[in-house]
């Protein structure tokens, strides 16, 4: 290994490396697209989870399919956060970055993924290459990195790989994986097993050459890197699985007995269909790729009308196209699970990036009044379990249920306890017993708005479903009183559902100076930020809402116990202190908007739309700013009391 800071970082000749014990570390692997940094990162995460570490991985995705080589826009890779306890979010700056060229590394620097002291392992071949321009770029970058205070280690990755394979572009990732395994003391046997799983279809030769590369990277690191990191792990007692949110959704679909999934490809929801394509039919399901988003939901509604439990999976623009059919499903009371993997908007926005921009669209984005259930999982494990909840609620309440996940959950990987599928999770088989002709197809219960539904094939239940205003018999109704009643019956379902919900649990003390309210994937980062501030004595707590429609009960009462309430979300809001914005004109983030309307509490908000998950450090900073404001106010009040006294 050569190093840009020659003196301090030269390998010691001593075979005993210095071991640093840390409670957690953030590692990134970045490369040009196609060099396999994604795969290496995911395997590193899986192996770390197997060793008993908490893990959260985040995909670093280029905006283009085949971006130009050595370009900042082209960075592809993975961030892996490993910790002694559970990892619940992507964290702040990276501790270690492996970069296959300096240009892709710049894209990480540009988004603030590095800090002074971050250790960089950088492919050294660019300094020796024929192309003068590249050599110069590389040299300049090294100088720049030194100025920024990074600790750079140049690593001859390509040269070492060439000893094993002819084309190092395919294989450098495995060598790097081996290097990281040595650095973090990972069990190489586990890596070998992952390689066998991953490349099973490619044959023995590929498996063998990848293993050799891993071993070579490992051996090289042992000889050349003078330090090690130890992240103490606790082996889990129960069996665990590792997967990303889209995989969890796909497995949840299978475990809930959903029988038809109909969707149209859209980033970042599409991969749900890939996982289903691999095994859905073995669980008795059918995956339909429709000609468009509208058809996708229409197909699912048709299947549901015919008694099958159906789901559709989409993202923002797809949700927009589906809204007319969602309105029909509400009107005609068709059970349906709609998974929305949110991405950056508006319009086609940021297709591969994260945002929580579909909350209000989910609640209101159809013609007229469309009461429906909206829930949001806040972890990858919840992505699995919420599908089962959604399926049950859709059937019980005879309504569409929207499950809001996002790109952060969709592509992040996390270990969790292996779910044991239960028979009661599966949708019951069709009951084709004859229908009592005296019972209306919409025999709304006045208390709950609930009704049973006849299914084609049930003798005596023949009715004509319609999107027009209709009475209990589904007869098209022109009388105004009937429409009023039907609307209240559909709406009543939400009130009935809310009665069955528990008030949400506050994370931290049940009262204090500030309550941070969030929903969905931001939970881990918010709770981590709250923990950090509380460790310094700050009186802050947080709350994660899983039910957005209906809202969980008791919110106004909880809010009253805090001096300030604010939401933290990844969607747009005007900043309260923006001089161009008045108190009256200020636009609030989506949950804040909803909570203000529902609780009549002056809920504030802080939101950003950077296209990336919100790092806990940034939330922490905002919490401190608010608390300082609170302190200043208190100080002022105390002064007033004194002067008055």
């Amino acid at each position, binding site marked *: 290994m050569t190093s840009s800071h020659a003196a301090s970082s030269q390998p010691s000749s001593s075979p005993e490396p210095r071991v640093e014990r840390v409670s957690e570390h953030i590692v990134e692997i970045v490369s040009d697209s196609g060099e396999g940094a994604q795969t290496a990162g995911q395997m590193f995460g899986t192996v770390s989870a197997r060793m008993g570490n908490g893990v959260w991985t985040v995909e670093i995705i280029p905006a283009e399919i085949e971006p130009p080589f050595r370009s900042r826009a082209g960075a592809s890779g993975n961030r892996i956060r490993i910790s002694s306890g559970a990892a619940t979010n992507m964290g702040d700056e990276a501790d270690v970055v492996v970069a296959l060229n300096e240009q892709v590394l710049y894209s990480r620097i540009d988004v603030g993924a590095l800090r002074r002291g971050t250790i960089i392992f950088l492919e050294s071949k660019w300094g020796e290459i024929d192309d003068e321009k590249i050599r110069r770029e590389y040299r300049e970058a090294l100088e720049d990195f030194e100025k920024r205070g990074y600790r750079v280690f140049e690593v001859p990755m390509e040269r070492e790989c060439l000893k094993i394979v002819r084309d190092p572009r395919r294989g450098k990732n495995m060598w790097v994986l081996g290097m990281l395994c040595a650095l973090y003391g990972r069990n190489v046997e586990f890596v070998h097993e992952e390689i066998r799983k991953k490349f099973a279809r490619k044959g023995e030769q590929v498996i063998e050459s990848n293993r050799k590369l891993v071993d070579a990277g490992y051996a090289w690191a042992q000889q050349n890197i003078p330090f090690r990191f130890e992240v103490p792990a606790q082996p889990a007692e129960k069996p*665990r699985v590792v997967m990303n949110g889209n995989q969890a959704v796909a*497995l949840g679909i299978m475990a809930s007995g959903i029988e038809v999934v109909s969707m149209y490809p859209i980033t970042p929801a599409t991969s749900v269909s890939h996982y289903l394509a691999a095994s859905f039919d073995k669980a008795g399901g059918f995956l*339909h790729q429709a000609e468009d988003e509208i*058809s996708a939901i229409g197909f*699912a509604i048709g299947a549901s009308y015919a008694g099958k439990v159906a789901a559709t999976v989409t993202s923002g623009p797809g949700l927009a196209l589906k809204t007319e059919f969602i309105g029909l499903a509400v009107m005609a009371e068709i059970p349906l699970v709609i998974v929305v993997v949110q991405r950056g908007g508006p319009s086609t926005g940021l297709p591969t990036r994260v945002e929580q921009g579909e909350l209000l669209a989910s609640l209101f984005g159809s013609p007229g009044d469309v009461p429906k259930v909206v829930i949001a999982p806040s972890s990858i494990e919840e992505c699995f379990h919420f599908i089962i909840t959604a399926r049950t609620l859709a059937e019980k309440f005879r309504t569409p249920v929207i499950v809001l996940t996002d790109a952060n959950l969709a592509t992040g990987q996390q270990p969790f306890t292996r779910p044991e599928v239960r028979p009661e999770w599966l949708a019951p088989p069709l009951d084709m017993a004859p229908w009592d002709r005296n019972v209306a197809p919409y025999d709304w219960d006045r208390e709950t708005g609930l009704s049973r539904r006849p299914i084609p094939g049930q003798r005596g239940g023949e009715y*004509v479903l*319609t999107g027009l205003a209709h009475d209990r018999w589904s007869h098209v109704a022109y009388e105004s009183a009937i429409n009023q009643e039907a609307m209240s019956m559909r709406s009543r379902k939400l009130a009935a559902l809310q009665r069955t919900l528990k008030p949400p649990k506050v994370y931290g003390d049940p009262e204090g100076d500030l309550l941070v309210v969030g929903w969905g994937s931001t939970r881990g980062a918010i709770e981590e930020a709250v923990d950090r501030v509380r460790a310094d004595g700050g009186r802050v707590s947080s709350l994660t809402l899983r039910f957005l429609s209906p809202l969980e009960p008791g919110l106004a009462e909880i809010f009253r116990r805090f001096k300030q309430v604010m939401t933290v979300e990844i969607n747009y809001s005007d900043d309260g202190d923006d001089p161009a914005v008045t108190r009256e004109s200020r636009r609030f983030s989506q949950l804040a908007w909803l909570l203000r309307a529902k609780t009549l509490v002056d809920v504030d908000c802080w939101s950003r739309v950077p296209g990336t998950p919100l790092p806990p450090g940034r939330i922490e900073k905002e919490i401190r700013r608010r608390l300082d404001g609170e302190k200043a106010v208190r100080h002022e009040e105390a002064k007033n009391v004194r002067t008055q006294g």
Partner: protein
Amino acid sequence: MYGLKDDWELEPRARRFVLEDYQGATPRWCPGCGDHAILNALQRLARDEQLPPEKTVVVSGIGCSSRLPHYMKTYGFHGLHGRPLPVACGVRSRRPDLNIFVITGDGDCCAIGTAHWIHAIRYNMKMTVMMFDNNIYGLTKMQSSPTTPKKHFSFTHPGGAPLSPINPLAVTLGVRNLSFLAQTIDWNPPHLYATLRAAHKHEGLAFVRILQRCPHFMPEIWTRLQEDPQLVMLLEHPEGIQLEDAAKRLFKRRREHDPHDLAAAHEIVNDESVVPIGLIYKNENAERYDAFSSRGIEMTTEEKLAAAQQAIDRFLI
């Protein structure tokens, strides 16, 4: 699993359905509207075939024609403008036991629903699709539809429709994997009935374009055809739509046409001097998507559970 099937039923005595068993609400179409004739033909077909009402689903979009499910006494789905076909395909996907009829209009099918029309033909799932073509938007009161003749007056084209109409037969014929295409007229009940019957018997998606009279907004459009028998050409073939000799005599022009002959079918639908009536194309070997989509519907709860467990195990660490 053992014992009764999920959809078991005990039939104490054979049921015999009469026309009233298929008659729902009183139709509210205008007097003289061709829809009445089509509704009667469909009810007769259901009666003659003894289709159990509970096993029959009529799916429609929006428009005058799409009110039809309300006038049947079977299961019905009166959904969104242009979208009956995705819904019908979804119904069919896991329910091979149902008889599915799709009602759509020229605006519903050939304008807002064009993508679904083409893809449903490609999917070829067993159902009878009846496109009521009156060349005008009726429910919204006389706007040009995609099949409105060139220069014809409407409220959206007071100077006359500027473009030539779409040819629904040619478009349908152009879709790969087409299985059944026929054309009929609402004012000839025997042919209308025979066509719907052949479509219903067909194993696959049967697309039937029905030239349908709208006396209110399009009074003159088909009278030309009714008055000049030379304008209508009956397609005849042993594998086509079969008519009684007496009914055949009403058609002055006839042509022998093998419905398996795609090239001849193209020639027929592109000849604008004459309106072909009968079976235009048939392919019994077209791939059927419902054969694929209904796999595994007999799977037991235990099998489903085991498969879900296995899928989860792939992610074990």
